[in-house]
């Protein structure tokens, strides 16, 4: 029987999960919005970030919350190398070539993960099992709450960076019109490097956060790529506020779908919402730049 308590618990669980979905999607949205390429390796970069946090935790006991910074640094470097070595030759050359390069990279990352770490699922945790805040009608799992708060902080930080720093403004200018930005003296090649670095760093951050909630294996890349796609479509490409809202909508609708229709239909409701938005508002909920970026 579906009780009010179950409904509120499902909404809260979905909300907390949605924060991480949003971070997972933010890098994808940013790279797509600015560089006009679909990073098919985004989910696999998230997997790499998760493994960085898990291995650091296993080796030193350092919590993934701190390990996240190492994941951010490494994935930022990976993004820079990727842009400088591989993608600079194909960005702007149509949509097929970057897709092929990034698809290949996804397969390489998955196979490296499998070869080095095996296929077993691995986890890390915050060292606070079973703790949380019982509000009576809902229980706030502490790991989920902490990861949600960190996820929101990451999203706000990214927004502030784009809004208030010179580099952020240059990134936004490049997104609006690359040629005009170039004429205004912006080094757009450098902007692309930085953008991909930030996009992959956000994937690394999302992976580290996910490692505290879900077991990670080398094959999770595709499923999180799909979730990130859904969030980007829901929220609107390039919209940071839209990404957060899209993530929360996805998380809550998944949980309510599972509650009312059964867990086998968990993704059905969210996919229906996804299709509905595509049909009725293909630019996404905030696709017209509603957050004023």
């Amino acid at each position, binding site marked *: 029987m579906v*009780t009010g*308590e*179950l409904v509120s*618990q*499902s909404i809260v*669980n979905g909300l907390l*999960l949605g924060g991480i979905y949003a971070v997972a999607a933010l890098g994808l949205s940013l790279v797509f919005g600015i560089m006009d390429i679909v990073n098919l390796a985004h989910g696999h970069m998230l997997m790499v970030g998760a493994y960085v946090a898990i291995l650091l935790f296993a080796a030193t006991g350092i919590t993934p919350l701190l390990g996240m910074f190492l994941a951010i640094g490494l994935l930022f470097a990976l993004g820079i190398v990727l842009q400088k070595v591989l993608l600079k030759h194909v960005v702007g050359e149509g949509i097929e070539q970057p897709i092929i390069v990034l698809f290949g990279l996804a397969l390489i990352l998955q196979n490296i993960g*499998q070869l080095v770490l*095996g*296929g*077993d*699922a*691995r*986890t890390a*945790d915050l060292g606070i*099992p*079973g*703790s*949380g805040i019982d509000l009576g009608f809902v*229980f706030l*799992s*502490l*790991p*989920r709450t902490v990861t949600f708060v960190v996820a929101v902080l990451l999203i706000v930080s990214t927004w502030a960076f784009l809004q208030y720093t010179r580099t952020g403004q240059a990134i936004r200018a490049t997104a609006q019109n690359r040629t005009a930005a170039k004429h205004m003296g912006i080094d757009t090649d450098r902007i692309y490097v930085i953008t991909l670095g930030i996009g992959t760093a956000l994937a690394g951050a999302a992976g580290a956060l996910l490692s505290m*909630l*879900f*077991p990670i*294996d080398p*094959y*999770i890349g595709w*499923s999180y790529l799909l979730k990130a796609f859904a969030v980007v479509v829901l929220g609107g490409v390039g919209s940071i506020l839209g990404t957060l809202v899209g993530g929360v909508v996805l998380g809550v609708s*998944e*949980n309510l779908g*599972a*509650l009312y229709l*059964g*867990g*086998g*239909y*968990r*993704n059905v409701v969210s996919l229906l919402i996804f299709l509905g938005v595509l049909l009725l508002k293909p630019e996404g909920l905030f696709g017209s730049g509603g957050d004023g970026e």
Partner: protein
Amino acid sequence: MVNDDSPVTRRSYLKGTAGAAVTASLAGCAFGGGGGSDDTLTIAGTVPETGAFSSLGQDLRRGYELGQARMNEQLDRDVELLLQDDESDAQTLRQNLQQMTSNNDVNMIWGSFSSLLVTAGSAYAENQNLPFLGIAFAYEEPHRNDNYEWTYAPFPKSRDVARSTLGTLELIPESERPSRVGIWEPNSGWGREQAEYWETRLGEAGYDIVLRETFEIGSQDFSTLISQSQSADVEVLLSNPTPGGGITAVNQMQSNNWSPDMLKFVRGADPSAWWSALGDAGAYALMCPGWVPGLTGNGNQQLRETYTSEYETEGQYMPVNVGGSYNLTQVALQAVQAAGSIEAEAIRDALRSETFQTVIGEFGFEDNGLPAEGELTAPTGQWWDGAQRLAYPNTGSERALEFRYPIPPWSER
């Protein structure tokens, strides 16, 4: 009570093995066993050494290889085992089998892990008219609906798993016995079949099925099911998730501060990865993997001796799938011995008509390849201190343990 820990030295084991080999070869000379043929028995098989089930690949391979060695000792012909990595993928499995059977004169096929991969191998064997043996395959429906002629499963099936669950519950003193059962049903054919058996069997025994909810295989978020179980006051939680799903679910039970009094995850808690991923949080979980350390008789002691002498292992508890796959090889050995031939039809007829003694018990097969109803007691294991140990049935082995119930709350663990 049987104690399976009687000291067997390596010397006495080797003497016994040599004696058995000599006896077998003499029998071959005297009676022309196996036709006195020099023909090699060639077996093809796959194991998941990479991919989603890779944590089980090595265990399956070891069980098969130990079995092949024993077959070579006891049959009057060479036994060649062709094993390839199926990458946990049904398509790769089919390609591998096709390549092996095209390039070799294969007489028999051995299965991989999970109903998904085993049914793929079985379909190929049925098409090729080759005897097929598969473990980690509890799903009964294909046996009944797919007109199996060549597929045999020396393994506890869904109905046996349900019976074993009831037996495990009955180990609890009546005054402390739980009554409220929750079933998490994976959205698969086997998920539905197992849930039906649990609901029927436990319902008839007087238990209240207070929750039966489906979930999607591959799901990463069990929080809704956990909330529903908590709300329904589930005391006994039963499910048959994939290994990854089972680990995820327990992880989230921990972070949501809820656990049932008894937890049985068939197949989910089978691999060693359960403990490496969950550590102490994985303790108390029950599983039904076909074979569990603590079983006695029918070559269990011999298996343990061989395993520990062959492989450098840290613990005294063998991984469950080594025993399960070794049991399969015992069936193959006895079927070929009974057939006296390596002809496919002769082996199939022996599989249909003989009774087999293996490390999981004594049983025959129905014509459709199911183990004969009621003959197999599906052993239930429980994770404790990094090892899976026999909880049901009670054999008195030192490797078994007294069923631990209830699972303490997270705050007390």
